[in-house]
């Protein structure tokens, strides 16, 4: 019953989307207010229907209804409740439903809070959103329906992949999807603007917060995924340049570029055509990210053939969406009038540099990710593109980006004086030298490159603070005066400082983790010790424990440093009997500047165990930096001018004019 209800609600949602995608568009073309107005209730209704379908599937998982194939294949009665619920999106069909739910959620937000949008723009934005919805609903209903029954029903389910039974991964997909789908807003606004033939500051005022929200989610989602890989896979690594990671990273790179170019559109009415193109490309990459992972295309071209129906559908959907929107762009972009002019050396110019390097970085990741497929299709030869390639091509693009990232915020709009900017960066240069010097002092062997890299991170960090300090006249005016200035500074300015500083922290973490991580593999018997990076790890032994749906060997290590206790680490090796699958649960103790990381391997049958100890300097900073970046995004989102239903422009103008003029 419930499954059929969910199925039915999903079909109704498709019909609603068809109405929402057609009538308001026609209304907007004809100037018919009543038809245009249809878009809003339709968007809300669509949300209600999709939410109903999603609730139905969730219910089926909660009560373990194994007459439904999807539940039987991905759940188990003994699974903890948390993972029963998160298991809803831990599989292909359910994750598609989640995607559609988030899309409907975003669409209804435009409907509910878009009162200050021009009616024709609103109708068109919702129309485009509905088109996307139609594509996904059709795909789900025709090829990936989660509500199908199975007869006879199995006695119990096949369980969720144990690797996914983890809080980190439970919330990684929804965040990633919220990011992907969030970029659909920028896309819909871009397409609507192309149809409308008009794009102004009000457009950018809407697009920016949505892009920022999507960016916040995507940043959080990627960070969460990377963190999960770090503590769950037991390899001590945090980023593998795996295709699955790359496809989520590409929209992030372009989305970050979009975030910056949208600011130029809002503040200066410039870079409009480019911003529209970025919006289209960013969402296209999000679509590719969603589908490529699901289709198995990345394993091999041949995987596509194992499920030709799905694969073909995906290909056609991508072709229509990406090809169609690029065609529309080619036809209509010349209509958009170029706006404000600026000199190459200016805030806008800085954003152009940012966009240039981010786009090139994105192209690099795209090339590396798809090249093996491409080459195999062209001449049948097989190559592998792994981390060594990305380290050799991607990293060199990041170096100038981070260098210029320090300069950009210090430059005024329209025209900047480079000498003046560098004069304000004396402190940052000092910070860079100090960080590089400290690195050389602390690490033996004269590590010139890592020292330079740490200097670069410090350069960005200090420069971000200098810019912020300059705005509030820190140490140049009485502290109370600075405090008052900080209070009246737009939240977006605080947000930028946080995001840039967070990036610097994350970069420092990445450098430390890549250059100085240590790994020791040893065979230890209980009572024996090993020393890694000055810490003594005493292996106390292994005990067997029983979890709710797994068995585990839990090892115990007492970690001391020069005799003083530091931590007790209890890594586990679990076996999930339903899928007969082992997983490793690393034990991690963080000191704030480094992680002590222990993994227990197999017993050699003679009392010894394989023990893997990693020492990971600065690793925690990666996620700390991401957290600060996300925080920066949120602070910026809370800016009064960006909030949904923000006051009309007349009221927003004064502080907008005040803000971008650094002393």
């Amino acid at each position, binding site marked *: 019953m419930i499954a059929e209800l969910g199925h039915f609600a999903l079909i109704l949602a498709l019909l609603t989307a068809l109405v929402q995608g057609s009538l308001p568009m026609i209304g907007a073309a004809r100037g018919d207010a009543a038809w245009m107005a249809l878009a809003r209730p339709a968007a809300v209704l669509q949300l209600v229907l999709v939410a109903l379908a999603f609730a139905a599937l969730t219910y089926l998982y909660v009560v373990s209804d194994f007459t439904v194939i999807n539940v039987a294949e991905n759940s188990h009665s003994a699974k903890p409740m948390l993972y029963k619920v998160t298991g809803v999106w831990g599989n292909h069909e359910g994750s598609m439903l989640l995607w559609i739910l988030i899309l409907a959620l975003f669409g209804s937000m435009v409907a509910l809070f878009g009162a200050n949008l021009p009616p024709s723009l609103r109708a068109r934005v919702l129309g485009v959103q509905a088109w996307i919805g139609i594509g996904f609903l059709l795909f789900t209903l025709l090829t990936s329906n989660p509500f199908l029954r199975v007869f006879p029903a199995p006695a119990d389910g096949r369980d969720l992949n144990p*690797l996914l039974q983890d809080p980190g991964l439970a919330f990684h997909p929804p965040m990633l999807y919220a990011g992907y789908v969030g970029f659909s807003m920028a896309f819909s606004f871009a397409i609507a603007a192309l149809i409308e033939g008009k794009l102004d500051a009000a457009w950018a005022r809407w697009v920016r917060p949505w892009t920022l929200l999507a960016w916040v989610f995507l940043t959080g989602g990627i960070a969460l995924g990377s963190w999960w890989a770090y503590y769950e896979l037991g390899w001590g690594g945090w980023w593998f340049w795996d295709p699955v990671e790359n496809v989520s990273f590409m929209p992030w790179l372009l989305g970050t570029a979009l975030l910056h170019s949208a600011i130029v559109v809002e503040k200066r009415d410039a870079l409009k055509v480019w911003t529209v193109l970025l919006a289209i490309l960013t969402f296209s990459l999000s679509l590719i990210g969603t589908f490529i992972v699901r289709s198995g295309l990345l394993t091999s071209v041949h995987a596509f053939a194992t499920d030709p129906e799905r694969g073909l559908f995906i290909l056609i959907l991508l072709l229509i969406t990406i090809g169609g929107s690029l065609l529309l762009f080619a036809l209509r972009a010349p209509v958009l009038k170029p706006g404000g002019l600026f000199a190459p050396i200016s805030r806008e110019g800085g954003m152009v540099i940012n966009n240039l390097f981010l786009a*090139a970085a994105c*192209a690099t990741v795209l090339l590396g990710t798809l090249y093996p497929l491409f080459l195999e299709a062209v001449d049948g030869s097989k190559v592998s593109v792994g981390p*060594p390639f990305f380290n050799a091509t991607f990293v060199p693009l990041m170096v100038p980006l981070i260098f210029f990232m320090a300069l950009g915020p210090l430059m005024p709009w329209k025209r900047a004086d480079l000498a003046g900017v560098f004069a304000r960066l004396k402190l940052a240069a000092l910070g860079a030298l100090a960080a590089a010097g400290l690195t050389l002092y602390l690490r033996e062997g004269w590590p010139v490159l890592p020292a330079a890299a740490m200097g670069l991170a410090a350069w960005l960090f200090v420069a971000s603070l200098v810019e912020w300090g300059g705005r509030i006249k820190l140490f140049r005016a009485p502290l109370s005066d600075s405090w008052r200035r900080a209070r009246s500074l737009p939240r977006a300015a605080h947000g930028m400082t946080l995001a840039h500083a967070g990036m610097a922290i994350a970069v420092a973490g990445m450098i430390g983790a890549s250059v100085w991580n240590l790994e020791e593999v040893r065979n230890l018997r209980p009572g024996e010790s090993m020393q890694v990076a000055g810490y003594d790890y005493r292996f106390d032994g292994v005990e067997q424990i029983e979890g709710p749906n797994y068995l585990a060997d839990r090892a115990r290590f007492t970690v001391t440093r020069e005799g003083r206790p530091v931590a007790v680490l209890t890594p586990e090796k679990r076996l999930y009997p339903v899928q007969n699958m082992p997983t490793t649960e690393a034990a991690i103790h963080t000191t704030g500047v480094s992680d002590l990381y222990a993994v227990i391997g197999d017993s050699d049958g003679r009392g010894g165990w394989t023990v893997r100890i990693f020492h990971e300097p600065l690793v925690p900073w990666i996620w700390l930096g991401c957290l600060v970046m996300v925080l920066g995004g949120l602070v910026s989102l809370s800016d009064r001018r960006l909030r949904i239903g923000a006051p009309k422009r007349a009221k927003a103008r004064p502080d907008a004019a005040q803000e971008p003029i650094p002393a």
Partner: protein
Amino acid sequence: MRALAVVLALLIGMPAVALEPDEILPDPVLEQRARELSKEIRCVVCQNESIDSSNADIAREVRLLVRERLVAGDSDQQVLDYLVARYGDFVLLRPPVKPGTYLLWFGPGIVLLFGLAAVFFFFRRQRAAATGAASLSAEEEARLARLLDDPDAAQNNQPTAPAEPKERR
């Protein structure tokens, strides 16, 4: 995120996890070279995994093979060449630079150059537009057109609309 890779590796079946203590060479210098080299070599049955982190049986075999060659006195390049002769370019995580991979290796640089060229032309066009616009702004041009079209509008307009300072330069 590498769940798939792990699942795949598990399906192929092996109890061991990555590098095992019994594989480690007594000579720390050679062992260090072996580890570095292992990160460049793909586990041929895995999804984009190096033999260093893979737990597949074949990865272990190749790890042992690499160490064997190093002990026998091979240089790093000789070890890689040996593996390429056995498994093809597929085994290298850093693809070789050859005609088939020129696009891969030089693509990022080409994209950057194209981008730089686009930025250059953007600013040049903007400068050209700026000198053109200095004489007449879009608004002024529109007003001029109106004036030329309709002399009445000109009379109505003149007292009320002194050119709006809309131009943002």
